[in-house]
């Protein structure tokens, strides 16, 4: 079914994309093998000293930039698995101003705030605090985010993103991946749906272009 008339789309997550606050710690998205922050003197202007010391720890080859591979090592799910490649790539692309496939300390600092924002939401939707999001919790999350999506869709996402088990659920990295892709798919659709009717007519070529340029 569709949403209420004139409002076929969901809302973006509450709050701006860049909150304030300290770098994530604890069992979610923690610093991984690097443990606590190293002494972080000489942070560039405007960069949080904690973010800066974390940047230095993650930038393993001291290139002044963080690659997808380096980022992956720094981010952990609640089950101690590292963030998956796709999510790291999506996030790097989001904060990479130079389109070089890596981010500098400013991009990294913004990325940390971004992750913190999503981590907060994730913990909110993880009602039983299991460290991962189940089918019903996912349904609820979508509903609270303003998306009107079918249970079948949530089921599809679970089968696609969760590990095969009797009770499949989604870790933080895939939750971020799903939400980022939902947003970007919605944006792509909205761009074409100038009349806001919830329906677009697409040629095959337009369809491929829309998806391949956005959903990377």
């Amino acid at each position, binding site marked *: 079914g569709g949403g209420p008339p004139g409002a076929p789309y969901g809302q973006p997550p509450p709050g701006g994309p860049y909150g304030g606050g300290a770098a994530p710690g604890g069992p979610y998205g923690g610093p991984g093998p690097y443990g606590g922050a190293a002494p972080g003197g000489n942070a560039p202007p405007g960069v949080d000293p904690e973010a800066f010391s974390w940047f230095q720890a993650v930038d393993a080859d001291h290139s002044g930039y963080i690659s997808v591979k380096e980022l992956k090592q720094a981010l952990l799910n609640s089950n101690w698995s590292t963030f998956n*490649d796709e999510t790291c790539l999506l996030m790097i692309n989001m904060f990479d101003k130079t389109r070089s496939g890596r981010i500098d300390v400013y991009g990294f600092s913004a990325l940390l705030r971004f992750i913190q924002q999503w981590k907060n939401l994730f913990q909110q939707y993880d009602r039983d605090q299991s460290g991962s999001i189940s089918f019903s919790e996912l349904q609820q999350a979508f509903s609270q985010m303003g998306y009107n999506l079918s249970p079948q869709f949530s089921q*599809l996402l679970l089968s*696609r993103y969760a590990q095969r088990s009797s009770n499949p659920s989604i870790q933080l990295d895939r939750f971020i991946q799903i939400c980022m892709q939902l947003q970007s798919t919605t944006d792509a*659709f909205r761009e074409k749906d100038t009349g806001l009717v919830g329906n*677009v007519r697409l040629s*095959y070529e337009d369809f491929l272009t829309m998806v391949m340029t956005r959903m990377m």
Partner: protein
Amino acid sequence: MAFPGQPVPGGGFYQGGYGGAPGGPAFPGQAQDPLYGYFAAVAGQDGQIDADELQRCLTQSGIAGAYKPFNLETCRLMISMLDRDMSGTLGFNEFKELWAVVNGWKQHFVSFDNDRSGTVDRQELEKALMNMGFRLSPQAVTAITRRYSTRGKITFDDYIACCVKLRALTECFRRRDASQQGFVNFQYDDFIQCVMSI
């Protein structure tokens, strides 16, 4: 309109599809099929394989040849490309279909990888996509090559991932274009589900 899928040498579409029940020998001689050996070695009682098992299966079958075996995300993509019942797994018939399609793409890749480096450059990727019949706008081609290349080179695994996505999207579109006009009216919900199921 013609979708990519007219059989072309090493083409992007495979018009196979065997009959029979999912999993287990469906016709005499299937058990002797070498592919069935690889499949049965990893599939459980349910006769289905998930992404991990597919990765093992493809590696053992040697389809990647001299190239590095596929990464897990690519295997997941391959499953979603053929996973018609949306179970997240493949039965033997689907696996066979996959194997044939991937083999076709591989032949294509090999024909471009003249120095056997395991990578092709952006122009070669563009040519390969065109040869497979994917009519893409210049922006789409730019976005694709940017996304899939590292330092100007595209690896075999990434190339396969790209082909899988394009094919899955094409299937998605084609299923909704019953009259084959080359246009589809997408409802928002359907569009989201279509794109995110890949």
